[in-house]
């Protein structure tokens, strides 16, 4: 938006209420910065994320989608994130087949890991930005 020479990627994230969304809140209260184009949708558990959401987001214009939950073993719903892991691994494999690997990411970010949250999403954003602008130049 602000930089006219560069196309900024749109990133949508799904964050579980108990860990990653808490981490994002903490990142906010610590005034850490991350790209404005990264926006987070809160879900009760990462296992609520239907891969269809990810597909919808990608085909409605998101350049990247991340799903983030509690570390394996830490799920508030005991095992929810293990299911997320299976589903997202499969979805990533599917995107890989379409040569779109890198558009979907799975993170484990605990409530205390505000820094990890920032690092992960900023790196993701930067990767997407490079890709998006490299594509434009060619």
């Amino acid at each position: 938006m602000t930089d006219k020479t560069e196309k900024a990627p749109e990133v949508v994230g799904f964050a579980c209420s108990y860990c990653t969304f808490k981490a994002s809140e903490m990142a906010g209260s610590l005034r850490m910065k991350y790209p404005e184009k990264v926006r987070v949708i809160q879900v009760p558990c990462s296992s609520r994320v239907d891969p269809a959401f990810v597909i919808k987001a990608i085909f409605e214009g998101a350049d990247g989608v991340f799903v983030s939950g509690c570390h394996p073993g830490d799920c508030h719903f005991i095992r929810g994130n293990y299911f997320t892991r299976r589903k997202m691994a499969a979805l990533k494999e599917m995107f890989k087949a379409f040569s779109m690997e890198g558009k979907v990411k799975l993170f484990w970010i605990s409530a205390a890991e505000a820094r990890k949250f920032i690092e992960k999403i900023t790196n993701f954003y930067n990767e997407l930005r490079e890709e998006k602008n490299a594509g434009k130049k060619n």
Partner: protein
Amino acid sequence: MQEEQKDIEKRVLVVGGGIGGITAALELAGCGVKVTMLEETSSIGGRMIQLDKTFPTLDCSTCTLSPKMVEVALNKNIELISLAKPISIKKNGRGFKVTIFKKSRYVDVKKCTACGTCFAGCPVVMKSEFNMGIGERKAVYIPFPQAIPNKATIDKREERPCRAACIDACPIHTNVPGYIRLIKDGRFKDAYLLIRSTNPLPSVCGRVCYAPCEGVCNRGALDASLAIRDLKRFAVDNFNIDELPVPQVQKTDKSVAIIGAGPSGLACAHDLALEGYNVTIFEALPEPGGMLRYAIPEYRLPKDELEKEIGYIKRLGVEIKCNTEVGKDITFEELKNTYDAIFIGVGAQKGINLNVDGEDLEGVMDGLNFLKRVNMGEKIELGNTVAVIGGGNTAVDCARTALRLGSKEVKIIYRRTRAEMPAAYEEVEALLKEGITIEFLATPKRFIGENGRLKKVECIRMELTEPDASGRRRPVEIPGSEFILHVETVITAIGQRPDTGFLKDIISLSKDNTIKIDMKTNMTELKGVFAGGDVVTGPAYVVDAIAAGKRAAINISRYLRGEDPLVFETPKSPEPLTEEDVLRLKEKYGTTSRIHVKEKDVSERINDFSEVVLGYDRDSACLEASRCLASMIEGCNECGECKRRCEVGAIDYEMKDETIEMDFDGIVIAPGFDLYDPTEKKEFGYGRIKGVLTGIEFERMSSVTGPTGGEILFNGKVPKRFYFIQCVGSRDRQTGSRYCSRVCCMYTAKHASIIKDRIKDAVVYISYIDVRAYGKGYEEFYKNTQGSGVKYIRGIPGEIIEGENGLIVRVEDMLSGELSEIEVDLVILATGVRPKATIKELAEIMSLKLDEYGFVNTDPVYPSKTSMDGIFVCGMASGPKDIPDTVASAGEAASACMEYIKAAL
């Protein structure tokens, strides 16, 4: 149903907000009991929230505990009282009457939004308890982002010794105690930013302010007032203004014209620009700065300094149009049509005539005009003898300037005495040092010239009358006391007044040419036209002009937003200390003398216009700052910064500690534990040798919520070699604690595995007696840790000494029998558990029996039963426990309490 209703009305007191207390409270609340939870600190969470990860699953402590904490906050059956503890308990039938002491938070929790603005501004930096002193926090703080209640707390421990009269005396209410505290702590940049937050021209004020603060400084009553202005200058000099970022602000489409680029105009422009308005300053003279540039001589305020300040205001987006005189180059009407608001800050720049004969002679000149010409770089020949008429700062400036221009004999003629001189005390001192004399109690009668050029001044002696009704002693001539002075130049500096000719017929002016404004709104009779500074008040000081500009900016902004004007309250007048105060404080703090700022040598300085005052060096600045009475105390000193910044008005210094009485049917205590302080174990050198830490300190060091964000750093480097020592203060007769602390083996293994995970090439040793990995999954965790390459050594080191490249641990491996010296970077002591200090207090008021170590006595078959019927204990208070055991014991205590109150039916 009837019975259940009764159940619901039951009340239980839970003392302690750690994991034990939280579990017990939630369990009880879940059974419909009304729970009151007391927590001594400002947030619940206890020790567990300080942990980075918990063994054996290495899951994040915050993740698992914070939902429980939130549950406590949301549960309608739980009333959480933080900063509170019971101070007396009386048995009342089967129930209890409890008196609770509630320490005040000084923050209205209903209003606080946890935005953190207050602690960003707070100048008092303290060690963070949450981070075990490894990190810092402010005196107003939220201990950690997940705190419950998530509200700020002011850590106020004692009353401020002084009245902070400085703040009240300052027209812009600079947070003097705040920045002095920061200078004292060596945080010079923060000090600058704090000054900057209210003062747009700190460099100017740090040099030429008349410092009303110093006049009222309460320290003055003990010995000598603080060198507040010089300290300000020190902070300014230590900061490169080029590094000051231009904050991003939301631009508005409204524009403001400011007439006059003097201090009031600049201040007004600065504040308005920060609000997002488009500001243009119109200045008649070739350069901005007004009196600051054209009246104050270079040796007091170097032009470079002024340039820097104006440069920043320009960086904020303010446009300054010089050589543009309103009324000549552009009409006032034009401005009014183009801009949404106007501020007039043209100052008072017309000298007042003496009205004596010969004033038109060559060699008689107006002081302001003289200074202006000098400041514009004009070379003026004054001759060897110069007389300056007047006793104000302008007169002093003229005299000292004359001296620097090469005049040999400079004399000031003043009609009153030294005591009445309005010029700054130290300016007069400096002047006298430089060899300028003052003719007191004299006034010129006429100037005598030859060929139109001044030759002599005829003066007359004066005397002061008895004080009149207003207390002023008027000077009156002594008839016949005329005398003659031979001078080549006379400079008159007896006062000045505004030059507001361009406003004639536009705004009605008063007799002395000043503009009348509504003092409440700063607006003139014309809508949208504001004024401030000397043009309103008549000649005054720089800081008054700045204050006027700032006040006008606030109301201009409100006017443009269509809001009601802010009515400025009459500021509190500076309060002096009472005599008793002075005596008490003298005794407490002793007396010191002011550390004077360095000045340039007289012989050197009178030859040119280089700056006279040289400023403090770091050490003397810190030393001088440490004299401030408000900085003597720990914790909040009520500097008012948070109050000023808080937009919801949540800060309330007047809040008082409370005691409340409540009735309960049962009590569960979960006060938790303290950790052993290993200082007394001299052989490990804790507190003496850098690099010897306790386990919990390491926990904070390695925690992602800690000060380093999870990076393990020591002296700024990543340490590679670690030595853990278990059973420090446990299983140890010497320290009087024969018991096993139950958690240290595992938390050490956890630390070791965290290190192995984060620092791949780390070498980790663990000294142990027995590895007590007894819990579910613990043994496996221990084995994994061992498997990851951590070296377990059976035997506790005898000594730790400082070596060249680190710490040397002397240990005998009891398995191999070898005595070895191991060099490491960090030694971490797995300190054991001690009964919480408050258990003793609780035991006293609750008549509980304690065991030989100070843990609460219980019965193994009724693990939460204390010696007092109806009071139940859980967690570490009844002996060391790990988290699952604490949770289990809390559940048991809650169940016992339920049984107790059920039986009461």
